[in-house]
């Protein structure tokens, strides 16, 4: 069974259809590239998968869970479970969970982590604190733990630091552990974003233009890292403009143009596809 399945995904902003009936699926352990000209709807799809937007039409399944579907909107008032959601019964809870739309943090809990196209680090926090954010959803301490610091809470704090350090080390940022995120060179900031996403221990890692702004050397290192991440058992979905990266590491590619899927296949197939060439080089004047 596919890890991620997208069915007829559509997103409209007012009159603009940013994503138009896109379907594709992603198998466990795969590296899939999502490419297309600017404004083709790639980042919108990422935002739909991670729950930042809700689709106008269509569904997304992840690991058997329906993680995205059109919101109920005003229809919730005629939905019996909406009225009953305060009932603390398990059957009601489960029924309601199927109907409501998931919030971004719940999608992350299910095992999807992402990076952003424009780097969104917690700039005034240290590298360690940034990566600790990824461990947040796997830990539980609340007010009580914070104030009274019982042994369980102290163990948990130690666990958070250990986990974070492990991912900092993996991304080669150990020397910067206590440096503020904003003081890091650009390439390292990109790495830190990936470290933070990995600390969430995802099954699917979504990378939004990870090579943007990197130099040749850094790009090569990044490609190597992405392969390593995949080999550790994490499925990868990435948007990238750098064709060297896309053709070099992706096993399969989905091409979007004006919100529609125009091609899907191996790098070689996609490169030969006339519609793809047309989308990238422009319409031929007759």
């Amino acid at each position, binding site marked *: 069974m596919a890890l991620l399945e997208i069915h007829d995904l559509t997103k409209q902003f007012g009159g603009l259809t940013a994503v138009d009936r896109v379907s594709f699926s992603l198998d466990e352990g795969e590296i899939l590239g999502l490419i297309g000209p600017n404004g083709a709807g790639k980042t919108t799809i990422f935002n739909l998968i991670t729950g930042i937007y809700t689709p106008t039409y269509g569904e997304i399944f992840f690991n058997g869970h329906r993680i995205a579907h059109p919101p109920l909107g005003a229809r919730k008032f005629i939905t019996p479970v909406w009225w009953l959601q305060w009932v603390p019964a398990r059957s009601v809870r489960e029924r309601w969970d199927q109907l409501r739309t998931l919030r971004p943090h719940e999608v992350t809990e299910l095992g999807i982590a992402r990076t952003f196209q424009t780097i969104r680090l*917690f700039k005034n926090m240290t590298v360690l604190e940034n990566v600790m954010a990824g461990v947040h*959803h796997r830990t539980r301490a609340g007010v009580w733990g*914070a104030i009274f610091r019982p042994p369980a809470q102290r163990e948990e704090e130690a666990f*958070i630091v250990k986990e974070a350090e492990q991912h900092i080390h993996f991304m080669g940022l150990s020397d910067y552990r206590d440096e503020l995120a904003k003081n890091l060179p650009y390439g390292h900031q990109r790495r830190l974003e990936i470290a933070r996403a990995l600390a969430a221990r995802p099954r699917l890692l979504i990378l939004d233009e990870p090579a943007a702004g990197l130099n040749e050397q850094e790009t090569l290192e990044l490609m190597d890292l992405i392969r390593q991440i995949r080999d550790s058992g994490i499925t990868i979905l990435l948007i990238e403009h750098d064709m060297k990266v896309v053709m070099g590491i992706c096993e399969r590619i989905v091409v979007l143009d004006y919100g529609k899927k125009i091609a899907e296949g191996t790098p070689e197939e996609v490169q030969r596809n006339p519609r793809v060439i047309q989308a990238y080089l422009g319409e031929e004047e007759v």
Partner: protein
Amino acid sequence: MENLRARLQKIPPLWWQAGLLVLAVLLPLPLNDYYRAVLWRTGIYAILGLSLNIIVGYAGLFQLGHAAFYALGAYTSALLNLHFHIPLVLTWPISILVAAFFGYLISRPILHLRGDYLCIVTIAFGEVVRLALVNNIFGITGGANGLSGIDQTVLFGLTLRTPLHHYYLVLFFLVLTLFAVRRLENSRLGRAWMYVREDETAAEAMGVDTTWAKLLAFVLGSGWAGLAGALYVARIPVVSPDLARFIESVVMFCIVVLGGTGSIPGVFVGTLGMITLPEIFRFLKTWRDAWMGVAMVAMMIARPEGLWPSRRIRMEIREKE
């Protein structure tokens, strides 16, 4: 201020913490009752400032209706004492719960609002509470005159009569508050607040339940303001809707911002500036408030991050410039 802080950091924390505590205990002894009452007021507002600091400083939510929760705590304590003759001491936990509950009720539907929008709703809520109290809601709040005839506080058989007693009571709770907020700041929850403040979208994408984090900040902050209200009633046996005036909320907000948003020492600097100094300069009469305004404008130009800012917030503010 920089030098002072650098020097303070060299001393082992336990020493200067103990030193400050001893100072706080000894300070009122040589003073007369008037200044002891000023110290008491300073303590109350420091607790209010620290509680508001959780909401404004840590979670970065604009709350300009904090006085409403202060008033709710005070009225809860007063009403329970007047109608059910519950000793004041036992009403304190209930005051906290009632204020926290209202904090939950008001914040739950509006947490998705950001910045200025949230600010407007909290101002409105503050006014709703004040007007409800003025209009003698359910016939129990006594209208514009408020409630009077509240018992004196009896603590372990000791009746608290003098300003000195009340100062020590407030000091006890202030130390308790300090202990709690410092630990909250350096915890998983404290970090979650920081993530939300720095970048809400990124925090959410990393698996932080932002609603949970913001709600907890609001509920904890409101509940603790309720305690400050109850401590007010413990000394002043009269409560009136004036407690919930908008200007009170503004003063609390200024306490947090003046000293440095998100900074615990900043709250104390802010309290000194907003509460203690105006009392000391009472002889300046009406000119006092004018100078206060001039001083604040000057400060916001010269030091927008506050007088004793937290390291991190200073960076955030300098960045936006």
